[in-house]
């Protein structure tokens, strides 16, 4: 599992990372699978004491509204639990990508959050299983069940608590990306010379494939969920909202127009929003280099990285990075990055040379452009 390649230091050299990875695996994979096993054993043990048909579905008010064979729970709950545990492997994708680049694996809050959320979901599912089974023990007829608020509330509370604990028990390890970049050299300007760089951030084919697949999966899920009887308004809402979010993100990030001039840096979605603006006076230094969105940011789009950088990263390849006097480092994938970096470094230098204008606001009426 932990084979190393020559680029990365051996795991012994990174004891923190090892600890963090083991903790994440326990929280996100081992415990959820354990819960599935325990839940299955308990249900099997209780099977002779359950009514048939038993209640297998509750509405939001804790009223039983669906009945079926006790075997239903024996299939549905373990399946759901194992699916949740499988989400742990999505975090390993980043690792596999990370090994393919210099700088090795990154680690940060995201790496703790994903397993913790998985644990929360697994705890919620298995407690739902145990609670709904326990309240029906030795009932002659499941239809005699009183409305029980514990059914909707308890699993939610247990899930949230478990997720919180799952996050906190993991060690606080932060390993930032080691990136190779070279400084952008400011242009030699004549006294009355002005420079502007204009370009755009386009998407890669990979990004379109990934977003397209996500949309197809979500549409399929929506059709499936909408077909469930009795109706599941909560599930329908969750899937619809996810669908809208993915759709909006895909469309908004299709193209960003980038403008670098004496006011600083501006990247605006072709729809005008969202926009990222950094005034020239706020820019500390500019670099050009290779950018690996998946390894550094865990994906494409407008993202926040594990080690606290903000990025508009749409493909692997050349781009610029610049650090700010206040705020996060910015990473942007653009073509002709060298010219862009030169223009930005020039703008930053000129802004510093301008007397008495600390952090010139970018309210210089930039509206009206379409």
């Amino acid at each position, binding site marked *: 599992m932990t084979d190393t390649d020559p680029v990365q230091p051996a795991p012994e050299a990174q004891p923190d990372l090892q600890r963090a990875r083991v903790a994440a695996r326990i929280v996100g994979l081992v415990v959820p699978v354990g819960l599935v096993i325990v839940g299955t054993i308990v249900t099997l043990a209780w099977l002779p004491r359950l009514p048939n048909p038993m209640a297998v579905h509750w509405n939001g008010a804790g009223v039983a509204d669906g009945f079926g064979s006790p075997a239903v729970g024996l299939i549905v709950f373990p399946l759901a639990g194992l699916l949740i545990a499988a989400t742990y492997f999505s975090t390993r994708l980043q690792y596999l990508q990370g090994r393919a680049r210099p700088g090795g694996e990154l680690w940060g809050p995201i790496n703790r959050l994903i397993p913790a959320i998985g644990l929360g979901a697994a705890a919620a599912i298995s407690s739902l299983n145990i609670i709904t089974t326990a309240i029906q023990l030795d009932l002659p007829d499941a239809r005699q069940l009183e409305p029980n608020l514990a059914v909707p509330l308890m699993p939610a509370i247990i899930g949230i608590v478990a997720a919180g604990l799952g996050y906190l028990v993991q060690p606080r390890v932060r390993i930032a990306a080691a990136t190779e970049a070279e400084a952008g050299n400011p242009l030699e300007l004549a006294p009355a*010379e*002005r*420079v502007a760089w204009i*370009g755009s951030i386009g998407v890669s084919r990979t990004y379109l494939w990934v977003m397209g697949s996500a949309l197809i999966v979500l549409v399929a899920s929506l059709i499936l969920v909408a077909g469930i009887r009795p109706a599941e308004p909560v599930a329908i809402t969750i899937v619809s909202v996810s669908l809208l979010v993915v759709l909006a993100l895909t469309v908004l990030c299709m193209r960003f127009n980038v403008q*670098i*001039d*004496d006011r600083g840096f501006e990247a605006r979605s072709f729809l005008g929003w969202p926009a990222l603006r950094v005034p020239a006076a706020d820019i500390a230094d500019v670099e050009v280099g290779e950018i690996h969105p998946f390894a550094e940011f865990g994906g494409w789009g407008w993202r926040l990285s594990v080690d606290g950088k903000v990025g508009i990263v749409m493909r692997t390849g050349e781009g610029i990075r610049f650090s700010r006097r206040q705020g996060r480092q910015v990473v942007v994938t653009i073509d*002709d990055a060298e010219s862009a970096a030169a*223009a930005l470094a020039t703008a930053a230098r000129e802004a510093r040379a301008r007397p008495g204008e600390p952090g010139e606001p970018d309210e210089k009426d*930039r509206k009206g452009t379409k």
Partner: protein
Amino acid sequence: MLIRIDEANERAIYEQIADSIRADIAAGKLRAGTALPAAKRLADALNINVHTVLRAYQQLRDERLVDLRRGRGAVVTSLANTLVELSGEVRELVERASQLGVSQVTLAALVVHADPDGAPPAGRAPIPLTFSQEQTAA
């Protein structure tokens, strides 16, 4: 694309913009089919009048390097590919000229007045180029 303009330079601003864009095209940074930014945006970035930018675009259209279409803006034509190919040869020529002690200005004048058929360009007499001492010494 990188645009540099110098107000102190005697070359007109619109020509300087056209020069910048042409250089990007020749360097292969602006490929055929790429749309140039809206004139308004470029004018805003450089803090100049929109008409100056439009004039630069018209200049490039007259050179058949861009197409100006309603609704599509300025789009780089396929002549860009030719320019990329030629720019290598131009570089070689400049290098050879400098080895021979001929300045770029002189070379440019030669190019301007060069006529494939050997006849002077219509409406103006060719300017005979004489090399002064300091030019050959460069």
